[in-house]
C-alpha cells in the first residue's frame, strides 16, 4: 500500500502548519536576538542604532526559522499519523503504520478500517495545534525589545548627563557671544576698531564645536581674551605714557590721571607737567606720542592720530615755552586719551564678561571629563582632585607670568598699574596672578595674606620640594628598609 500517497493531502496541510509555526518561532528567535543585541550594545557602552539591531533580528529570524522547520516542526510520517488520529481516528493510522510490514487477517481488517476512515477525512478536520504561547511570546518579546531600546541603562544615563551639561555650556557660550556683540554694538568707537572687535567675537563663535570639552571651551575663551588684551595693549598708549611718567615722581599726578582715564584732571596734571618737563623727557614723550600716532593711523583713527602727532610736534620744538607746550598737550592729548578710555572700557567689559563665562563653563565639569581625569591620574595622585590639579596648573602658569612681569618691571596686561606704584587702582583691581603665593614677595604681603588660610594656591614646585625634603628626612629612620627607601626616592625622582 502506498502510504505516501494516502497521506499526501495531510502532509501538505502539515507542512503549511509547520512553516507557519517555524515562522513564528523564527520571529521569536529574531526578537530574542534583537533584544540581546540592544542589551549587549548598551552594556558595552556602544551607541546602539536601529540598523544593526534590525539586521541581527533578521538574521536570527532566518536562522531560527530554518532550524525550527528542519529540526522541530518538519512533519514526518509518524507525526502526520498522530495528528490525523487526533481528528477522531483513534490511533487507527498510527497502528496501520506500525503494522505496515505485518500480515494477518486482523491486521488487514485494521488497515482497511484505517484507510476507509482516512479517505473520508478532510485535511481541515485535523485540529490545528497552534498554541497561544506562539503568539504571546512575540508580543512579550516585542515589548521587551521596545523597553530595552527606550529604557536608558547606566551608561546611557551618564551619557545623557554629559549631553545635558554640554548643552548648558553651549547655552552659556551662545549667551557670551550675544553679550559680547551687544557690548561692541553699544561702544562709541571707530568703525574699524569695532570691526576688529566683531572679528574677534566671530572667530570665537566659529571656533566652538559641539564636541568641545570644558577645557577646550575655556581654552578658546582664554585665547580670545589674550587677543583682546594684546589689542588693548597696542591701542591704549596712555598706559605706556603713564608708566613712563610714573617712574618720575614729578609727573606722578599726570601718570595717575592717565592711568585712571581722568580727562578732567588731565589739564591740571598737564599744567604741572609742562611746568617741570625736562628736555630728556620731552624727547621720550615725543617718541611715545609719535608711536601712538602711528598706531592710531593704523586704525584709521585720523583725528586721534593727528592729535598725537600735534602733541609730538609741540613737544619736539626746542626751547619752546611752557605755555605753548601746555596748549598743545592739552589740546592734543585730552581727546585721544578720552577715546582710549572708551576703548579700554569696552575691552575691559568684554574681558570681564568672558572671564565670568569662562568660570561658569569651567564650573560645569562633565562626568565624562571627570572620569578621564581620574583615569589619567596616577594612583599616587588620587588624593588630588581634578579641579585642584587644574587650578594648580593654572596658578602655576600665572604665577610664573606674574614673576616674569615683575622681574621685567612691566605693567600687567590688563593695564593696571603695579602694586605700590599705582596706589588705589592697583589694590582694587587685584588680579588672579596677585593671589599666588610668592616666596619672594615682601614680608608685608605675607603678613596681610596667608595663602592657605585664604584658600589660595601654592606653586607645585614649592610643595613638591617641601614634601620631598620631609620624605627624605623621614627616610633616615632605621626601621625603613633600603629597598623601601629606594622605592620612595625613585617615586619622588619620577615626579620631578
Amino acid at each position, binding site marked *: 500500500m502506498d502510504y505516501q500517497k494516502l497521506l499526501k493531502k495531510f502532509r501538505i496541510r502539515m507542512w503549511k502548519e509547520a512553516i507557519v509555526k517555524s515562522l513564528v518561532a523564527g520571529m521569536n528567535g529574531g526578537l530574542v536576538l534583537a533584544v540581546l543585541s540592544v542589551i549587549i550594545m548598551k552594556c558595552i557602552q556602544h551607541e546602539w542604532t536601529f540598523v544593526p539591531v534590525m539586521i541581527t533580528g533578521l538574521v536570527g529570524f532566518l536562522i531560527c526559522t530554518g532550524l525550527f522547520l528542519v529540526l522541530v516542526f518538519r512533519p514526518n510520517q509518524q507525526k502526520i499519523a*498522530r495528528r490525523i*488520529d*487526533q*481528528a*477522531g*481516528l*483513534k*490511533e*487507527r493510522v*498510527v*497502528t*496501520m503504520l*506500525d*503494522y505496515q510490514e*505485518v500480515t*494477518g*487477517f*486482523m*491486521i488487514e*481488517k*485494521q488497515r*482497511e*478500517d*484505517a484507510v476507509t476512515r482516512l479517505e473520508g477525512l478532510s485535511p481541515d478536520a485535523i*485540529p490545528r495545534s497552534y498554541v497561544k504561547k506562539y503568539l504571546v511570546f512575540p508580543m512579550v518579546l516585542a515589548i521587551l525589545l521596545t523597553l530595552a531600546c527606550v529604557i536608558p541603562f547606566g551608561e546611557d544615563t551618564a551619557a545623557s548627563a554629559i549631553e545635558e551639561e554640554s548643552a548648558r555650556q553651549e547655552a552659556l557660550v551662545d549667551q557670551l557671544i550675544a553679550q559680547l556683540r551687544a557690548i561692541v554694538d553699544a561702544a562709541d568707537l571707530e568703525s574699524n576698531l569695532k570691526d576688529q572687535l566683531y572679528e574677534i567675537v566671530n572667530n570665537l563663535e566659529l571656533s566652538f564645536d559641539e564636541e568641545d570639552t570644558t577645557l577646550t571651551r575655556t581654552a578658546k575663551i582664554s585665547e580670545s581674551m589674550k587677543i583682546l588684551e594684546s589689542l588693548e595693549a597696542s591701542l591704549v598708549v596712555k598706559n605706556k605714557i603713564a608708566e613712563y611718567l610714573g617712574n618720575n615722581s614729578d609727573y606722578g599726578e599726570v601718570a595717575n590721571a592717565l592711568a585712571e582715564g581722568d580727562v578732567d584732571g588731565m589739564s591740571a596734571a598737564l599744567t604741572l607737567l609742562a611746568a617741570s618737563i625736562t628736555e630728556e623727557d620731552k624727547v621720550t614723550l615725543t617718541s611715545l606720542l609719535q608711536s601712538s600716532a602711528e598706531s592710531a593711523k593704523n586704525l584709521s583713527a585720523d583725528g586721534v592720530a593727528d592729535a598725537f602727532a600735534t602733541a609730538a610736534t609741540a613737544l619736539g620744538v626746542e626751547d619752546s615755552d611752557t605755555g605753548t607746550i601746555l596748549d598743545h598737550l592739552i589740546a592734543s592729548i585730552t581727546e585721544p586719551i578720552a577715546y582710549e578710555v572708551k576703548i579700554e572700557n569696552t575691552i575691559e567689559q568684554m574681558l570681564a564678561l568672558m572671564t565670568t563665562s569662562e568660570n561658569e563653563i569651567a564650573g560645569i565639569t562633565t562626568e565624562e571629563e571627570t572620569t578621564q581625569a581620574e583615569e589619567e591620574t596616577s594612583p599616587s595622585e588620587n588624593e588630588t582632585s581634578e579641579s585642584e590639579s587644574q587650578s594648580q596648573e593654572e596658578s602655576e602658569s600665572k604665577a610664573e607670568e606674574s614673576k616674569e612681569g615683575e622681574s621685567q618691571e612691566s605693567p600687567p596686561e590688563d593695564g593696571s598699574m603695579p602694586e605700590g606704584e599705582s596706589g588705589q587702582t592697583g589694590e582694587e583691581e587685584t588680579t588672579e596672578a596677585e593671589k599666588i603665593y610668592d616666596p619672594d614677595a615682601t614680608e608685608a604681603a605675607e603678613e596681610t595674606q596667608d595663602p592657605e588660610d585664604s584658600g589660595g594656591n601654592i606653586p607645585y614646585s614649592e610643595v613638591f620640594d617641601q614634601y620631598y625634603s620631609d620624605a627624605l628626612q623621614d627616610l633616615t629612620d632605621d626601621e625603613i628598609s633600603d629597598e623601601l627607601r629606594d622605592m620612595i626616592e625613585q617615586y619622588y625622582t619620577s615626579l620631578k
Partner: protein
Amino acid sequence: MVTEEALKFFYDKCTGVKTQLERDMIGQQQVVEGCMIAMIAGGNVLLEGVPGVGKTRLVRSLGRVFDLPFSRIQFTPDLMPADVTGTNMIMKDEQGNSAFTFQKGPVFTNILLADEINRATPKTQSALLEAMQEHTVTVMGKTYSLDDPFFVLATQNPIEQDGTYPLPEAQMDRFLFKLLITYPNLNELARIVNITQETMDEVADAVCTGKDLMLMRQIAKEVPVAQDVMNYTMKLVLATHPDSECATQSAQKYVRCGASPRGAQALITTAKVRALLHGRFNVAYEDINALAYPVLRHRVKLNFDAVTEKITQDQVVTNIIKELTAAPVKKKAPEPTMSNAKKILSRRN
C-alpha cells in the same frame, strides 16, 4: 486462525450476551460491559457494591448466559479452605479397601461466585489464590487442574466492615477488574421493580458456551496495539508508582504502592477486547483510559494523606491520566455501538 466468519461470530456472541444480560440487569451498562470484557479476556472480577444492587444476580445471570457450570460459595468467617478446594476423604473401593479419595470442592467449576469474599478469614481467602492465577488446586501435595474457562466472580460489601477481613494485596492483584456497582437511578429502579414483580429468578438464556468464549478470547488477542499506545499504557502503569521516574504528582502525593505488571498486562489484554466490542481493530488511548479505572483502582494503594483528604483511587487515576501528556484525544468521534460494528462488518463483506 481469525477469519471474517470468526469476527462475525465474535460480534454475534457479544451482542447476544449483552442482550441477555440486560434482561436481568437493569442499567449498570459499564458493569455489564466490564464483566463481558473480563470474561472474554479470561480474568477474575471483584464486584463491590452495597447490598441489594444486583451483584449476585449479575453473576448468576452471567453463569446462565455463558451456559457454564456455576458454583456459589457464601464466604463466612468459619469457612475453611477445604470447603472451597475440596479435601481427601477415606473411601472404600469395590474390594473393600480404604483409600484417600479427593472430593472436589465448589472451586471445581467454570464460574465461581465468591459471595462476600471479605467475610472469610485470610486463610480461606488464600485458598483461592492458586485457583485464580494458575487455574489449579493443590491438596495434600497433589495438584488438580480446573476446567477452562475458569472465572472467579467475587462480591464484597464496602460499608459493613465489622467481622470482615480485607483482601490481601496478593489476592486483590489476581482480580482482573474491580467493578463498582452503584445505586440505580429513578428510571432504572422503576424498571427493576416492575420486572421483579413477575419473577425474582434470572431469565437470561444461554447464548454462549465455554468453547465459544475461548474462541472469542483468541480472536481478541489478534488485535494490534500501536507502539505509541503501548508506551502510553506502560507509562500509565508506572505513573502509579510514587518512586517511579514516570510518577505523576498525584501518585507522589497520594499513592503508597502502585500497580503491578499484572496491571499492565490486564490493561492491554482487556483493551483489545474493548476495541473489538467498540467496532475497532486496534487499541486506542481511549480504551486504555476507560479501562484504567477497573484495572488500577484495586491495585493502587493509597497513603494516609489520601485517606485523610478522602481521595479515592478513581480520583487518583483520573489525575494521573490528566497529568500524562500522552492522552492527546481532544476531538471526540461518535462512539461506535455494537450495531455499528456489525454494519461495518457487513459493509466490508
